[in-house]
């Protein structure tokens, strides 16, 4: 299980990365994170949405109510230009970080 501290710093990054390809709604995001991390990272409703709203406020993502025929409207989040910038930056620094950690702990298959 990833510690809370790490999660906090990287949660924005996870969400932005997932929104890079297509708009998604909150439940979808929580499921994707859970499945892609093999269940290691879990977002519950009480922490996911405050995070989404804060990112929206920062102008990284934008929520929009979308109605599809025969369905209730749902709020989909899509990434903004500012958000893409953030992903790019974070991705770089993240890779640097991972690389640095790798240098310290050595190759996994050494």
């Amino acid at each position: 299980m990833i510690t809370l501290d790490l999660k906090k710093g990287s949660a924005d990054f996870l969400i932005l990365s997932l929104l890079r390809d297509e708009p998604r709604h909150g439940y979808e995001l929580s499921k994707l994170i859970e499945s892609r991390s093999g269940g290691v990272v879990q977002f519950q409703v009480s922490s996911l949405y405050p995070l989404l709203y804060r990112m929206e406020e920062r102008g990284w993502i934008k929520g929009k109510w979308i109605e599809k025929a025969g369905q209730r409207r749902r709020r989909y989040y899509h990434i903004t230009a500012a958000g893409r910038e953030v992903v790019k930056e974070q991705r770089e620094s993240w890779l640097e970080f991972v690389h640095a950690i790798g240098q310290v702990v050595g190759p996994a298959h050494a």
Partner: protein
Amino acid sequence: MPDWSAEILAQLAPLGLSAEREFEIAEELAQHLEQRFAELRAHGASDADASRQVLDELRHGALPDALARTQHRAPRDAGEPPGARSTGSHVSSLWRDVRYGARSLRKAPGFTTIATITLALGIGATTAMFSVLDAVLLRPLPFAQPEQLVRVFATYGSTPGNLQSLSVADLLALRADGRAFSSLASFRVPNDGFSYVAVDQPDRVYGTVVSAGFFSTLGVQPKLGRTFRPGDDAPGAPPLVVLSDAFWRRRLGSDPAVIGKSLDLQGRPTTVIGVMPPSVWYPRGDRAELWINDTFPQPGRRGPFGLAVVAREKPGVAAAQRDAVLAQVAAEVRARFPGGPDRWTFSEQSLAQRFSGPLRPALLMLMGAVVVVLLIACVNVTNLMLARATSREGEIAVRTALGASRAALVRQLLVEGTLLAILGGSLGVLVAIWGVRVLTSVAPDSLFVLRDASTGVDARVLALAALATIGSVLLFALAPAILGASARAIGAVREAVRGGTDAPSRRRLRSALVVAEFALSLVLLVGAGLLVRSLAKLRSVDTGVHGEGVVTASIALPSTRYEGLPQIVIFHDRLLAALRSLPGVESVSASVGLPPDVFGSSSDFFVSSRPPADGEFSPLADVLAVDGDYFSALGIPLLSGRVFDERDDGNAPNRAIVSRALAQKYFPGTNPVGERINVGGPGDANAYTIVGVVGDVRYDGVAQAPSEAIYFPFVQGGMGVTPSFSVVARTRAGTDDVARLVREAVHQIDPQLAIANVRTVHELVEESVAGDKFRTTLLAVFAALALVLAAVGIYGVMTYAVGRRSREIGIRLALGARAGAIYRLVLGEGLVVAGIGIAIGLLASAMLTRTVSKLLFEVSATDVATFVAVPVLLLAIAALACFLPARRAARVDPSVTMRTD
């Protein structure tokens, strides 16, 4: 499955979000929880287990706290969430808006105070002023169909505006004809009123002697009894009186059984036939105490004159037709009484014009001032609200980011604006009420209608003024919503918090408003300045007398007990002897005229050696019968010859003293002493020998040229003697004591005589300029108001501009700018704005002051001193108003402003 929405809403409640936002969040989260519930059920959990699990997850991590943190929300008790409301009734959310609004006004005490004062003055002062103007100028006269009422005059020669009073012969001829007017009536206004004795206490009352049709012509009804009937003015009709409401209440204790009772008026028992309502004051205004019936014997000649005539035009008779009829009637009068002037006719002037005409220029000027002050107040409020809007952009942006809907924002701003409007508006109403009270109590006699109980705050005007100013408040209260909410909120937050510079367009707008304020203020100040200079000149006019220590009082001898000259002369002798013996009295006199504006009468005269040719008009002079030491009592210098003395008694030849103006005009280059003049007609009986020349005195008002005057000894009983006169006493003692002693002396000689108008000469002069003083004071007050508002306006704008530019100023200071440079920067910017306004105002003033030239005495409408002094004053005020913000700017600590982000 539980009701997720309810559970979520319960958790959101403490956040106090807008209802809209709350429901949005609830909807989104409920969908999530529903799906999660379905997922758990699909994995085999029971209904109850799945529910418990989902609710746990919802409650885990304290959603409200997380949301509150997200939104950087201040704790609830430190401030109601701006522009937001929780689910609750509209009333409670409105109440919250009100509390929030009140708090935000309290947090900006400078803004709130200035806005409130501006509103109060704008609404209050303008309403008070307009109410007064309305009462005098616009309110119709209190008569039936006042537009049909006219005054009728005799016009001699072809000079228009030459309006002379009529005679009994004229009145009877017009009344008999009946083609031009449906009714007409005459009135006379004895200057000295009537003696009235109630329970052995003599008093003077003021009233009018009227013909029978007076009240029916005006179309007014009595509240008790009746008015005069046809026949009440026939020769030998018994004396009757109609009382004013004021007389009936004050002197008769509102006696309901007064009709038929008898009053002792002019020494005659006079029967009360009616009481008029308070609205009937014509023609004496505040001195309308009673109306007595005139009686008209069949005239044997056309004169004497002295009747004022009021008439009601016959509907459907065209003006040209009426003129023709009037010319015919005049021709009939000439035919019946030949020998008089032959180039005259009847003319008419509307009563309304007659009444408010002389006041019109002054009142219109004041009305203009009202409009200008109202404009300035609106401009100021607009400016304040705009400045506030800009400074609140940040706050608004934060609220928008927090999810406050635009509707909620607009509502909040409106509530705040309304609070301000209520505050300023209610103060304004108080100012208006107080203002009307003050204005009516200090108004001069010529504006007596104001004392009418019905003069109050005019509701329509109040509504108009309130609408204008409060309208500006509410309109510009919304500016932040319009400016802020539409802007990209996040960008604005950053900008606003960091204190970026102001949008140039808005700054230009505010500067333009200040320019307008200064221009308007300047116009008012120039107008006020001209009037103040004019008033100063009026007050310093040399009336021709040395009035210090001089007490005067007026006395009217009733004709019933003082039938002819001998009785009048005996009374004079006894009174003057009594007054001379008073301690401290230096000289005493009796006269029919007094400076500055009481002249006895005027008469035609000519130099006896140069009688006028046929058809040539003789000049007119003021004629005054004087007694005793008139010239020394008033300090009028003797320039040549001698003053009257014991030699000039009833047995001596006719003698006269002339004023310098008359002497210089009609005896140029020679000394007239010993010459003879004819006064009132040819022949030796009308010839007077000039024994002296005295200094000029103004008897026609301080604004008029010194009178060409001829003085006669009272005792010779020739020209100018009337049963009413003034006593004059020069004293070394206090004037108050002398006034009391004069009363006692009169009372000892004739206990039934009343004396009135006990005044010092100084008071007479002050009273004569009371009208000028009143309008000058009013305009000056308005100009001062405008000045204060303009100063507040420029102060507000400059303070605000400095606040916005503190970063820029900080950078300049950090880069080595001296404080002096900062002063120059701020003052320079403020003075440029003020200067543009002043320049525009000067141009406007130069064009507008011509309209007040009628009101000016010996001051040009483009008086250089005023046109220089006023702009300098305004610039000084502007510099002062900019100095305070400049000082604040110069004290900016660069390290603080630049670090602040």
